[in-house]
């Protein structure tokens, strides 16, 4: 079960800087570690995180094997208009997950 937690204000004033915090369940297996059988466990990491605000990309990050499991990503953006923020994580083995959050800007 993959689950993501997103902490983002539900309402904001126009022009206000809002802080968004995200946390996702992921093993972030580096591809360098041997398993119990001595064989290297294949790499399984998230490679990219993207946040879109009303369809427009406002933040993105590349992730690498050195990033810890269950990555926490925090960033800020400017509240421009009411709409949806969508958060997408893409990774190895075709992994993709998108979460959306609505924000009301007054």
């Amino acid at each position, binding site marked *: *079960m993959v689950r993501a*937690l997103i902490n983002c204000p539900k309402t904001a004033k126009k022009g206000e800087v809002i802080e968004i915090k995200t946390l996702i369940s992921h093993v972030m297996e580096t591809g360098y570690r041997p398993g119990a059988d001595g064989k290297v466990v294949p790499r399984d990491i998230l490679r990219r995180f993207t946040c879109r605000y009303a369809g427009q990309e406002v933040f993105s990050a590349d992730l690498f094997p050195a990033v810890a499991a*269950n990555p926490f990503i925090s960033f800020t953006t400017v509240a421009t208009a009411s709409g949806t923020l969508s958060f997408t994580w893409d990774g190895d083995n075709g992994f993709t997950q998108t979460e959306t959050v609505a924000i009301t800007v007054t």
Partner: protein
Amino acid sequence: MIRLVLPAALLATGFALAADIPANERRSGFDFMSSSTQQMQRDDTLNPAMLWVAEGEAQWSEAPAAAAKSCASCHGDAVGSMRGVAARYPAFDERRQKPVDLQQRINLCRETHQQQPALAAESRPLLGLAAYIGLQSRGLPVSPPQDARLQPARSRGAALFNTAMGQLNFSCAQCHNDNWGHRLAGSPIPQAHPTGYPIYRLEWQGMGSLQRRLRNCMTGVRAEPLPYGADELVELELYLNSRAAGMTVETPAVRP
């Protein structure tokens, strides 16, 4: 108070009996952590254990099979019904006639009331439920039950705590009673109060139970770790909980 029962072998080696930590000197493992790790635990939006809690919350109201009842259909809203429950465990189980810890209680409930197979030790769903139930006791004092039937098991747990084991021949007490606050290699030795389990441990990059932690310590002194669910581990949990009585439950805690 609990009297420590020392095995004859330990007395023969001439170790002085480790003194219990006085109540006013007891400190949670939280106090031994770096400020950044403390911050991770304080802020739920930063604490990765909340991912397990979210899963546990979803499982709580979800029927595990079409014909089975969900946890919520008997226990209702966990926020009310499970308040203070985790702070009491391990507790005496009538059916088994022995103490069981919270995770064993969850599995007993699954087997008897939901007719489902027990969840595997350290499995994600079991840790999730334990973390979700544990969260309902956060901020409450650890309250081991005053049940006379638990006393023999608690004494056995105390004896195990004071028994030297493994190739390094260390008892729990030698580190956690006599040398807390000092360092073992680079890491501070805490007092071993189980106030935040299940915990998100950075070293594990995941969630783990108190039994996993106890087995870890046993491996550390190069002893054969007891299997998950062993009576001895539950007895040790029971003793540790009475040792931490009155301290604040932190579940789900973060540890380095």
